[in-house]
């Protein structure tokens, strides 16, 4: 609805303070962080009134990805990817499972829903403090096996240094190329099935390029590190992942429960008429029909996974490298070591990871509103 001119004038005037604040505090600050990341601010006395800032281009980024001293950043980045994958997969699966259990309205539904959802209301600091106690190496869950007459568990939940699914950082570009190849090979396949020629040609040639890089070109590239460096899935992160899934499964449960109850009853009845059991109904009909919910849950949860800072901080401590996350490292580098430029570079990388999900999502929701 478009009101009169006077109305529009008032409308804009009301918005002016917010526009100004967001322009400065969101867009201006993002630009400023990016600029800081291109300087060497903090290599000297970072906190003085007029700190020395020299422009160094992409030097900080190059150091983070290939420099000797930033090994922790690279492992943190791998941790961040696994945190996101497992948090999203875990909360979607558990949330969906709970929503299906509750869909038919069992007795006491309200109590179940309330219990599954209450962790979301709490601060990561509160839940992290409690989970730290649950996962303490000599007590907590490690005692459980003794109830069944077994040996006490000895897994160091939050401080294990063990890595699995390891790879050499020197091959990281090759691995990325293979992953991208698989993605484009998949779109190639769907294009082939649907008979879309343009998609076929485009994704086929991109997939070919990545495959060519992975198999041939990579051998001729200079190594990004002069020595081998092992990274992988850090087992110490499992405890944090469990706590995070515990905290956010109620959220996906609420989303899916609303989704299931929004489906027309006729859909269920006609499936029953066709002889489908409950399992067939949920997996073949209900879940595919809730794809939009799944998609927005994936986006929100990947975004939440980038904010695990407080949970990791309270559960394992900021200095614990094996549960590290770039957001925690950014805090350490910036506010403990006063190395503002490198801290800003880490924050830019975090931001770009979030933007990858958020910008398409916002564009899509903008189009949907129009």
């Amino acid at each position: 609805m478009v009101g009169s001119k006077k109305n529009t004038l008032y409308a804009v005037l009301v918005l002016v303070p917010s526009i100004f604040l967001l322009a400065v505090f969101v867009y201006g600050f993002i630009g400023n962080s990016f600029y800081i990341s291109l300087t060497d601010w903090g290599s000297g006395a970072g906190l003085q009134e007029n700190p020395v800032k020299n422009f160094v281009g992409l030097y900080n980024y190059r150091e983070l990805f290939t420099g000797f001293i930033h090994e922790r950043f690279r492992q943190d980045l791998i941790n961040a990817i696994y945190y996101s994958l497992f948090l999203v997969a875990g909360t979607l699966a558990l949330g969906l499972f709970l929503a299906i259990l509750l869909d038919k309205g069992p007795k006491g539904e309200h109590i179940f829903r309330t219990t599954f959802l209450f962790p979301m209301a709490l601060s990561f600091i509160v839940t992290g403090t409690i989970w730290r106690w649950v996962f303490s190496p000599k007590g907590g869950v490690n005692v459980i096996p003794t109830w069944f007459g077994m040996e006490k568990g000895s897994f160091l939940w939050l401080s294990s240094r063990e890595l699995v699914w390891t790879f050499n950082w020197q091959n990281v570009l090759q691995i990325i190329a293979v992953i991208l190849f698989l993605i484009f090979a998949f779109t190639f396949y769907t294009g082939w099935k649907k008979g879309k020629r343009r998609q076929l040609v485009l994704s086929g040639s991109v997939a070919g390029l990545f495959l060519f890089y992975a198999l041939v070109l990579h051998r001729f590239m200079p190594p990004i590190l002069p020595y081998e460096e092992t990274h992988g899935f850090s087992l110490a992160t499992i405890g944090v992942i469990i706590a995070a899934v515990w905290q956010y499964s109620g959220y996906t449960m609420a989303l899916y429960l609303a989704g299931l109850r929004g489906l027309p009853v006729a859909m269920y009845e006609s499936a029953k008429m066709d002889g489908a059991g409950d399992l067939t109904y949920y997996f073949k009909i209900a879940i595919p029909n809730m794809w939009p919910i799944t998609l927005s849950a994936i986006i929100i949860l990947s975004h939440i996974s980038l904010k695990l800072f407080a949970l990791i901080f309270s559960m394992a401590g900021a200095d614990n490298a094996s549960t590290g996350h770039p957001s925690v490292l950014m805090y350490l580098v910036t506010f403990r070591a006063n190395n503002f430029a490198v801290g800003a570079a880490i924050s830019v990388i975090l931001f770009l990871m979030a933007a990858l999900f958020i910008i398409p999502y916002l564009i899509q929701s903008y189009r949907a509103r129009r």
Partner: protein
Amino acid sequence: MSQSTLRKVHPSVYVLLLVVLAVFLVPIYMAVITALKNPAEISLSTAWKLPSKLYWRSFADALDLLLPSLKNSVVLTVSGTVISALVGSLNGFVFSKNRFRGSEILFTLFLFGMFIPYQIILIPLFQVLRSIGIYGSLSGLILAHVVYGIPITTLIFRNFYDQIPDSLVESARLDGAGFFSLYGRLFLPLSIPGFVVVGIWQFTQIWNEFLWGVTLTKQDAQPVTVGLAQLAGGQAVSWNLPMAGSFLAGLPVLLIYILLGQYFIRGLLAGSVKE
């Protein structure tokens, strides 16, 4: 499913639900029994056992330690919530009922601000607060929460006002209601549920926030999350105090959740941008 009574619930559903329920309550059980134990009785191998005698002192001790930061959190949360709810209400009114050319793009640009990882604005924010002289104080923290709360409060109020029919606005305008009288006389009185949803949402967010608390405040302005992290972070600390402290720090939001849960869920679902 609306006609749920048509369908029988299989007994195995209850079994599964109860198992998950038990697992969900494990951390709470551990926190309760540990908070109520005499520190001398707490040891890792008896972590699951009930206290032999209830020991309430830990709550009083934790309260003593957390009181200054609890006070800070109350001031911070109440003022941050009230201001950002008012701003969000006015903004939502504009974006819902006073659209103009480009207002949709502007709205999308607003929303972007709630999806950024806040590390990306942290260093400039720290610098700006320092240069205007409110770094380390509560007012700096309130400012941050108000500014970065604009997107979500605007979104929730916009979705809320979208449910008010346009015809109502049209007829009020025909009766000569201008921008502000329309807002003040018609929308504001209708906004109570919207304020409840936004208020609960912001209250919970601000109360629970940690990143800004730990980076932008000095000792005497710390919110309770930072106070609790310090209480629990010490090496030699016995576990009854952090557990009791967790209760104190979680209590306000937990009460809100129990008493006003439906509004909390509405804010939660509004957080995923929808039409």
